[in-house]
């Protein structure tokens, strides 16, 4: 009788159940709603940037087309594929965690990490190209070339369409360099320029290369802000993966307790989806206008 009572009082306490919850179901549901709320918050966080993109794209479409044309569509497409595949391996990791298959989980998490790191590596290559070409929007963050040491700019896979090739690269202060206003000229000739664009690109009634450059610089500011923030989320994601890998290796996740894998998976998919929006907005839209393809 006494043993019965004590067994009743100290009812089964599953590993991983925290003190504030009654049972694993409640804990699982809380984690799930919590993660979705966090992602809602993330959507609004990126939402501010998407709004800025929308406003300036609507205001200066030609400057955005010019900037977009200069992004490397091949690296961008490749990276999109890499990220989508990483979402697959992540989903598989959750699947194997639910089945309690330890080594399959570990393998999928490692694959996800490799793909995530590949994405960041490609992003680094793209950023470096922008640094070398002098189109990072912040003064001082571009490659500095003192006078007299002029070099030809680095070509990026077949996508170099600015007038920068026409003259030597000379950038002692590491400023944002953009001399090509041909797209705006083309739009002007075709009568496509809106009044807002004219107000933005014209000085004394004529198209002004410096004023156009400032608007292209806004495109690159938004490009770096959006992809930079996205890359930061990728780095956090890799940190999560490293932690998961360790726990999965120890065999923590079983059919009864796999919530952390599932939640990290949700986060990873979210970061993937943000890129699925960033890629067409930054790399694809507007390319057809004067893009030469």
């Amino acid at each position: 009788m006494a043993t019965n009572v004590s067994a009743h009082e100290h009812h089964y306490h599953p590993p991983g159940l925290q003190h504030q919850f009654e049972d694993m179901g409640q804990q699982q549901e809380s984690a799930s709603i919590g993660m979705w709320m966090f992602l809602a918050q993330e959507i609004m966080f990126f939402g501010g940037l998407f709004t800025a993109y929308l406003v300036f794209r609507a205001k200066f479409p030609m400057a955005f087309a010019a900037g977009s044309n200069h992004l490397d569509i091949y690296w961008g497409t490749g990276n999109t594929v890499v990220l989508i595949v990483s979402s697959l391996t992540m989903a598989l990791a959750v699947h194997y965690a639910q089945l309690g298959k330890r080594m399959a989980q570990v393998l999928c998490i490692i694959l996800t990490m490799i793909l995530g790191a590949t994405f960041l590596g490609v992003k680094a290559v793209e950023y470096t190209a922008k640094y070398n070409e002098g189109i990072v929007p912040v003064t001082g963050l571009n490659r500095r070339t003192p006078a007299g040491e002029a070099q030809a700019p680095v070509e990026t896979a077949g996508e170099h369409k600015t007038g920068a090739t026409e003259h030597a690269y000379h950038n002692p202060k590491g400023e944002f360099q953009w001399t090509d206003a041909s797209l705006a000229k083309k739009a002007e000739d075709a009568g496509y320029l809106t009044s807002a664009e004219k107000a933005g690109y014209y000085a004394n009634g004529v198209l002004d290369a410096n004023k156009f450059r400032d608007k292209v610089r806004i495109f690159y500011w938004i490009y770096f802000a959006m992809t930079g923030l996205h890359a930061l989320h990728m780095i956090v994601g890799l940190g999560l993966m490293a932690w998961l890998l360790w726990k999965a290796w120890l065999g923590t996740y079983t059919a009864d307790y796999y919530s952390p894998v599932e939640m990290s998976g949700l986060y990873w998919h979210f970061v993937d989806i943000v890129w699925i929006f960033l890629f067409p907005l930054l790399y694809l839209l507007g390319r057809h206008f004067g893009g030469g393809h």
Partner: protein
Amino acid sequence: MQNIDAINSEIIERPAVNYLNNGYSLKSWLLTRDHKRIAMLYLASVSFFFMLGGIFAGLIRLELLTPQSDLLESASYNKVFTAHGVIMVFLFLIPAIPATLGNFLIPLMIGAKDLAFPRINLLSWYLYMSGAAVAAYALLQGGVDTGWTFYAPYSTTFSNGYVVATGLGAFIIGFSSILTGLNFIVTVHTMRAPGMTWFRLPLFVWAHYATSLIMILGTPVVAITILLLALERLAKVGIFDPAIGGDPILFQHLFWFYSHPAVYIMILPSMGVISELIANFSRKRIFGYEFVAFSSIAIAVIGFIVWGHHLFVSGQSIYAGLVFSFLTMVVAIPSAVKTFNWTATLYKGSISWDTPMLYALGFLGLFLVGGLTGLFLGTAGLDIHLSDTYFIVAHFHYIMVGGTVMGYLGGIHFWWSKMTGREYSEFWGKVSAMVVFIGFNLLFFPQFILGYMGMPRRYASYPEELQVLNIFSTAGASVLGVGFIMPVFYLVHSLFFGKKAADNPWLLPGLEWRTASPPITENFESTPIVTWEAYEFGEESGLHTEEARRTTLAPTA
């Protein structure tokens, strides 16, 4: 009523160990995961910043005692009103009720052991303190002169203040607010005790649920905006300064997309407190429970689409102005629903005039004035005359101080015995509620007239003919200051010398009153089973016989 004392003296022997005395070390406080202790940490820090912000308010009123700019020259005056705004908005008003009373009471009210994520709850307090430290650093380095609104391009390009550090502080505090909201939403969804259905939730919980929605969906927008602003100031390139092709109106849109709903983050929890006070001190089920509950949600939803009324004179399109003006009228409806329902609850109620109720009734009057003058300002045409005058200052102080602070103080008095297990002096409580009400009106009512006469806000000097009203206002500030300081003394006094409080001194049906004062760390001896409706004072509440009480409290195993 005759059996209240009898019941209170008899109920369950008070447990020897409660959440306050189960550990006295610093570590037991700083690393606690108990929502009640975290609430007390917040209570102390939030009240501290309220006093600090109040000192800056005092400096503003002292400067405005005379028409000349004499106590403070203009540049210092700019920094003082910015410090007042930043501290009061980010460090006091937004976390005030949710992080203290909400944190303490939501798990108790729904019959849970804790919030869903206790560690995240503690993290939110550390984020709050870190953000406060960064903002304090900016203040000590020399402060900011942009106003709490950080309008570009002044903030990005011209200001000499510590905009980046202050912005970083606000950014960090924002995430503390997001985490609090996230925790509340999940807790209300998954942690309710058996029988505690959505429509049995106290309205305090509904109000906090609505508030949390705004915290989660609004705060990240201002976070990214402030981040972009800081980056623009550092990098000297960006999207807000018109000199380099940016759009300053975009900043205002993004800023107010959060900062208008933020007003509802401040007022909704206070409305939740008032719903509790009015129903409980009228000993009556609240009139139109569902309407009051859903009006909170309606305010949260509609509140997201009215931000443009801050931009009537900023160069936003006139058609946008028209739409925002209309929507502003629409958001007044759910607030009016609440006010009418509170009044209808009082009707034929058996009203008692305890200190918390005095604060609640004060709230009703002040919020009415604040809300109705909001309609003046929401009318696009009239707003052109009143924009950036003291009329605005008076209006939002009637909402922020008359609404939020009255609710904060009313709530602290109401639940003080639950939080600390001690009784404060009812006499001094009543005196302070009256002094606050009188001081507040003396301080802010003249500002409506000053604003209507054209006195602009944010200036250190003004024409001599406006001095009389300004003297009234400054005198009111002194009275209000006294009213705010009094509770500090008698509440702290009660901690050490106050009479031990009963578990349920007013014999109220809420779950938080059916556990010990102060509660044990796990909140309830066993998970309660709820069989009564919210604000149920009849037989079903099980309050009227001691036996029934014991049944409700019996272990459910």
